[in-house]
């Protein structure tokens, strides 16, 4: 039997009541996936591109990987994976389906919870939606080695709650001043919180080799000096016309062009990330799993 999704939109039908908050199978929470958020202050820096390709790279390293497209309303990870999701984040947040139902396989290995397209703005999301998302992330984290969160741009509370639920955040920026200041705004906001994820930086769309390192050094110095926050460099991803001119339906770059400079940069980024975090694998969660971290932020909202 399938959930009556039309009923879920219109009101609260019988089937909706049955399927809403359908309990996910009990899973051990002693160990939990490493949760990494990909975020940026500014939109269009390449978060989704890096998230999907990083997920494929991790899958090739033998990890069980899930991507959760938290870019509520402006989701496109499913397009980059070339899948047409039947259920999305919208159904999940509405309570029409469970996390297990929302998680779909992709042709390239990682699982995906596709973002919703019916949520027109972050302002529509309330504490209740975020609690549902927290529970879903808890289930996903208990069943994978690494969970990658493709976070929305901007500094709205739902976006920040999603970032703060992760153990590590990869800030994706470009070497231009607008992206740089927005990335710093994000880092400053993170550093204003009682606890925040370890911050890593990737500089995407770098026109000249070495510009990424220079961008990092400037941002790291400002973050240290003004926000009291250390950030860690993961590397630079070169500007590549092969990426810019990609068409819908093409396989992700790491699959179609594994030897191109951009793919090599992503693989290098992953190996640096692995070295920095001490292994991309499940970790002991005790009582501080992703769901608890998210709940702590929801209480502060």
């Amino acid at each position, binding site marked *: 039997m399938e959930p009556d999704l039309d009923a879920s939109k219109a009101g609260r039908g019988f089937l909706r009541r049955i399927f*809403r*908050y359908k309990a996910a199978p009990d899973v051990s929470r002693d160990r*939990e996936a490493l949760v990494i958020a990909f975020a940026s*202050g*500014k939109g*269009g820096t390449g978060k989704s591109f890096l998230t999907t390709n990083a997920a494929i790279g991790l899958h090739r390293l033998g990890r069980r990987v899930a991507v959760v497209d938290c870019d509520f309303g402006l989701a496109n990870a499913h397009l980059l994976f070339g899948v047409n999701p039947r259920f999305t984040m919208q159904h999940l947040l509405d309570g029409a389906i469970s996390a297990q139902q929302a998680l779909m396989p992709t042709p390239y290995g990682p699982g995906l919870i596709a973002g919703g397209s019916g949520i027109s703005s972050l302002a529509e999301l309330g*504490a*209740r939606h975020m*609690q549902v998302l927290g*529970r879903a992330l808890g289930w996903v984290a208990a069943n994978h080695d690494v969970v990658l969160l493709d976070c929305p741009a*901007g*500094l709205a*509370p739902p976006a*920040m*709650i999603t970032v703060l639920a992760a*153990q590590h955040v990869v800030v994706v920026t470009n070497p231009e*001043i*607008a992206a*740089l*200041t*927005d990335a*710093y*705004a994000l880092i*400053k*906001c993170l*550093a*204003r*919180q*009682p*606890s*925040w*994820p*370890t911050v890593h930086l990737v500089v995407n769309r770098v026109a000249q080799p070495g510009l990424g390192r220079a961008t990092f050094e*400037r*941002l790291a*110095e*400002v973050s*240290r*000096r*003004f*926000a*009291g*926050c*250390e950030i*860690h460099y993961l590397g630079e991803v070169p500007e590549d016309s092969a990426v810019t001119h990609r068409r819908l339906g093409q396989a992700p770059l790491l699959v179609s062009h594994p030897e191109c400079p951009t793919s090599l940069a992503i693989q290098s980024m992953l190996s640096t990330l692995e*070295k920095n975090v*001490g292994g991309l694998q499940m*970790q*002991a*969660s*005790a*009582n*501080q*799993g992703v769901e608890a*971290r998210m709940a*702590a*932020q929801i*209480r*502060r*909202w």
Partner: protein
Amino acid sequence: MIRGPVLPQMREGLWALVAGRLEAIETGLLLVLEDLDCSGGRLGAVEGLARDAAGAPVLLTMATDGDALLAGRVLAASEFLQRVGDSLAAAVPEGNFAPGVNGRVVVVGTEGASASLESLRRLSLPGVALCRLEPFRIGGVERFAVRWLANGPEAAAKVTAAQVDFAVAADRRADWQTIEQLSLRLDPAVRIDGDRFLRRITWQGRLLGEVCAADGTLRGSGADGVSYRLLSPRDVREFGDRLVRRYAELTGLSMDGGNRAGEPSARPREDEVGGGGAARNAKGVAPGESLRASLSSARLTPEEYSALGGPARLAGGGTEVAGVAENVIRAVSAQEGSWAGPTMRTD
């Protein structure tokens, strides 16, 4: 046409409104699950099961005009809580309910349900709180105030099960009292329960630590399983420090960043790459500051723009400088609804 504020008159509509704003009903109320049927399907399900700030289970049901099953549903819910007692905590582990704390039923109604609420109030049911939402309109937005009709939060059950005496040796009693007083001072939601030889210290159902009395000595254990032999005032202070840090972790007040799973926050983050934890919280958030407040207070300063290569270093002149500033201000404050200026640059 000018219309007054209107609350939903159907149970489901009212619940959709209330479920998203439980904090407005009672501080610390957190939704655990929805649709709890405790009457075998005869009287309909109560809308929500929540946990209050003391870690007690709270059944929430909506009262609307013409709901003939309301009284029966409330009675069934109240009886259900008495019947299942502490075993609810084991049956719904995600609720993190505190052991030994009595649950209650909260009935939320609107103006239209005044008659039903009044009937319930006259019944004076123990453990049943009644409130009515008073809608109003401010700045074009509908909001509601909560008017308690019976057993409001101030009267909420802060009742713990009768406790047996803790069998602590006379020469260690002062140490135990120190720990007990420290714990109870942390937060009104901290509870201490247990049996003759063991005391569990919890906050909202989450373990802060345990103290065990055996062989005339006291032994403490933290939530992370680390044991402490409480032989001297220094040991007691160390254990107390452990409890406070655990409390800070759970409440989000911890000043230790990184959130590495299972890692005690007091431990220096020596293993962190590049010394990431060393400078943490140098400009940290004030304790208890809300997420929204912390975001709005993170506005960038002119010195920061300048250091990033903004106004002081840009050779482009005023237009670009203004564009950078606007871009940053937009990023920080647009979500707060305070951004009203023109957009000079877009993504």
